[in-house]
């Protein structure tokens, strides 16, 4: 049995297939739990009960809703551009699933002689891949808005595009200090290079910052973390940045003309993206799967996964909390927050951090 598993995990094709299926199942399960989690938490915050009928504590509510949408009529309005209209929901799903492939969810485990990384693919350009795929997510929204041939989707689509690309610039700038810090921590590494690999960045966060405080990057890079998280909320079009689907102004935004399962795909992609950005924030700033107890007997391999999920769900709770608390921005406030606050602050912070870090690493420039 062991030898079979070993063979499976040392053959690239089979291990790739297993990992892809595992990540796919994880994300589908997460989306199901997350929708229920959000509705339930928001309900409690608003002094309601929330979904509690389908399954224990209503946890199967999302599954029930999904099945219902499956059996609904998919209306395709007269004015749509058929090809792009049908392609947009699929284009929304793909980047959502692909982004999570580079995030490590646990420490590498050993099966016989084979070492299995609990990560879809450990790419040395992991961070760039994430940025590239989150850019691709914009396409589905602009296509959906444009191809619907209707007013509200078009407005929602262009709004969403402007919002997402604005905050993407801030998000990219907030991630540069992470790479700088990783490079300084690696102190040149073997080949004189830093790293953008997620697995290495997690390993660099072992050790301690000061005394008992763990060496998570957030303690060095708190401003970056705050900017990244703000931009991530805007990237996923969540409240208070949900002008894209502001129902009081533009009905359903870019998915007004989508019904049945086509709508469900946009919904699913949105929730998977929420999980993705929180998982990325945890990996880059909050030490990923690091945590005490990884040397316990028998369950030691599962402890890192536990810590990863705990941290990610803590951030997801924060997202839901923000949604339940803050009112929606006005569009000009949204744009000025992105361009006049987040981008200048992250530029200045980047310069400051690079100067301080260079001083620590190389001494004074004149010495």
């Amino acid at each position, binding site marked *: 049995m062991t030898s079979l598993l070993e063979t499976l995990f040392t053959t690239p094709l089979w291990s790739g297939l297993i990992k892809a299926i595992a990540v796919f199942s994880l994300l589908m399960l997460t989306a199901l739990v997350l929708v229920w989690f959000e509705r339930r938490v928001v309900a409690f915050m608003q002094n309601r009960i929330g979904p509690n009928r389908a399954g224990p504590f209503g946890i199967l509510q999302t599954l029930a809703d999904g099945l219902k949408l499956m059996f609904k009529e998919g209306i395709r309005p007269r004015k749509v551009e058929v090809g792009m209209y049908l392609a947009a929901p699929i284009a929304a799903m793909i980047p959502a699933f692909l982004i999570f492939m580079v995030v490590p969810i646990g420490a590498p485990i050993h099966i016989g002689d084979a070492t299995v990384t609990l990560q879809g693919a450990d790419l040395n350009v992991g961070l760039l891949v994430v940025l590239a795929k989150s850019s691709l997510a914009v396409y589905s929204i602009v296509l959906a808005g444009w191809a619907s041939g209707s007013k509200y989707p078009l407005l929602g689509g262009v709004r969403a595009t402007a919002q997402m*690309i604005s905050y993407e610039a801030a998000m990219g700038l907030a991630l*540069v200090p992470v790479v700088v810090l990783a490079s300084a921590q690696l102190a040149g590494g073997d080949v004189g290079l830093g790293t953008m690999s997620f697995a290495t960045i997690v390993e660099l966060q072992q050790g301690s910052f000061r005394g008992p405080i763990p060496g998570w990057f957030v303690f060095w890079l708190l401003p970056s973390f705050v900017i990244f998280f703000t931009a991530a909320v805007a990237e996923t079009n969540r409240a208070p940045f949900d002008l894209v689907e502001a129902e009081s102004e533009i009905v359903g935004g870019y998915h007004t003309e989508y019904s*049945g399962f086509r709508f469900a795909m946009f919904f699913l992609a949105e929730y998977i993206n929420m999980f993705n950005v929180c998982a990325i924030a945890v990996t880059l700033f909050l030490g990923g799967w690091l945590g005490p107890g990884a040397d316990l007997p028998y369950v030691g391999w599962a402890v890192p996964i536990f810590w990863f999920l705990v941290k990610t769900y803590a951030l997801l709770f924060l997202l839901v909390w923000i949604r339940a608390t803050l009112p929606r921005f006005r569009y000009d406030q949204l744009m000025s927050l992105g361009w006049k606050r987040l981008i200048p602050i992250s530029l200045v912070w980047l310069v400051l951090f690079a100067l301080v870090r260079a001083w620590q690493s190389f001494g004074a420039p004149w010495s």
Partner: protein
Amino acid sequence: MSLIDYLPIAIMFGIAVGFAVASLVLSRLIGPKNPTPEKLEPYECGIVPLQDPVQRFPVKFYLVAMLFVIFDIEIVFLFAWAVRFHDLGWYGVGAVGVFTLLLIETLVYVWKRGALDWNIAHRRRRVVDRQLREAA
């Protein structure tokens, strides 16, 4: 690091596309199909649309897109330096410092030009103010 490391991502791409297409096809097969002319009209809050949707939108969205292209390309350059931060030492920090100062200067310029003001009324007022000042 070779191309084989990207294999799981390629497989995932296949799974994602397969899942999306399969569930859409399945939903089409089992869902009812009962189109009526009213149902197929574009959404207009329950009334019959009076005019065709205007496929035009304010030019300021283009402006944001152009600014994004500028900044995003500059971020890519920053990543290239960040990876070799330790290797390049003070030389790298100095070069990127100059680069980032230029970036900040660009931002200040477009800011002062009013390109970052979403509210066109503000932008127009600023221009009018300047013309008045120059005339005075």
